[in-house]
């Protein structure tokens, strides 16, 4: 279970980005590949913990699941993978080991609020 350290890396990354731009983060948008080795549910519960005591406390983690796409050498085309247990082309059945997408573990965007001094 390494989701907590992943969550802490996400918080750290978002915090750096927010500090650099002088903004407050409301939500973090994450792309999560089916082959990233990270479990979404575990990550979501760890995220809250990782945010505690940081400027990201109270922010949300929005996860976009990325399914696996392979390249079929037979069809010379990209194909969606129907099962993680069977890496072959959904059209012609050729075994495929080239992964086009599905390993993503990437912060794609931050939903932010400009930091403005409160009017007195």
């Amino acid at each position, binding site marked *: 279970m390494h989701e907590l350290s992943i969550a802490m890396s996400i918080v750290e990354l978002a915090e750096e980005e927010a500090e650099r731009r002088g903004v407050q983060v409301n939500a973090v948008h994450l792309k999560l590949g089916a082959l990233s080795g990270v479990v979404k549910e575990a990550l979501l519960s760890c995220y809250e913990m990782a945010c505690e005591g940081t400027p990201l406390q109270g922010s949300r983690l929005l996860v976009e699941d990325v399914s696996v796409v392979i390249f079929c050498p037979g069809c010379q085309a990209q194909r969606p993978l129907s099962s993680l247990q069977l*890496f072959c082309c959904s059209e012609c059945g050729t075994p495929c080991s080239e992964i086009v997408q599905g390993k993503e573990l990437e912060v794609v965007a931050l939903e*932010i609020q400009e930091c403005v001094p409160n009017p007195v």
Partner: protein
Amino acid sequence: MRPEPRLIEVRKNVLKRNDVIARSLRDCFRAAGVFVVSLVSSPGSGKTAILEKTLTLLRANYQVAALVGDLATENDALRLARSQAPVKQITTGTLCHLEAAMVRSALEEWDLNQLDFLFIENVGNLVCPSSYDLGEDLRLVLISVTEGEDKPLKYPTIFHSADVAVVTKVDLAAAVEFSWETAYDNIQSVRPGMPVLQLSAKTGEGMEKYLALLTTRLAELRQAAAV
């Protein structure tokens, strides 16, 4: 009035920090001409036994060393020390995998230029190590015959993070009715084209082919560096 929230693009790999360290480690390994092999498997698959045998056999002709990750004990390092090769333990505490930074700090006192092979034994875990690049040249994923043939189907991700699969404890295959064909097919199903070796640390079966793979890869690496 507070301004409306808006979206800013970031596009950053979450494991960038680890990847950057792994890349710099790989550069150091290249510069020193050392071939780095890491081993991942579930607990009890025989990583330490294979490694002990590997270190002992390679030591005759090569300079070898090993880093070994363990949650709490130093048992593995003590076992590996019997090979007389330099061995260092990385105790990860509660962390279930090795990260590139741990490898980097463990290597601080070692002169990589003196080495031909460096082995890194990861913590026994078939899930978490898959996300972390350690800068290695070759990653072996081990499954023992006692675990059954379906490990690849249960943990496809780790098979995609590794280069070669090794079926261990093959001396016990008959006793546990292990089907090599089924295991091989399962590996090929999750990772078509993956090379698979069979090994027994106990009887030495398959060691020759496995060591030949390592020494060939070292020679190739040195040849590439010389060009």
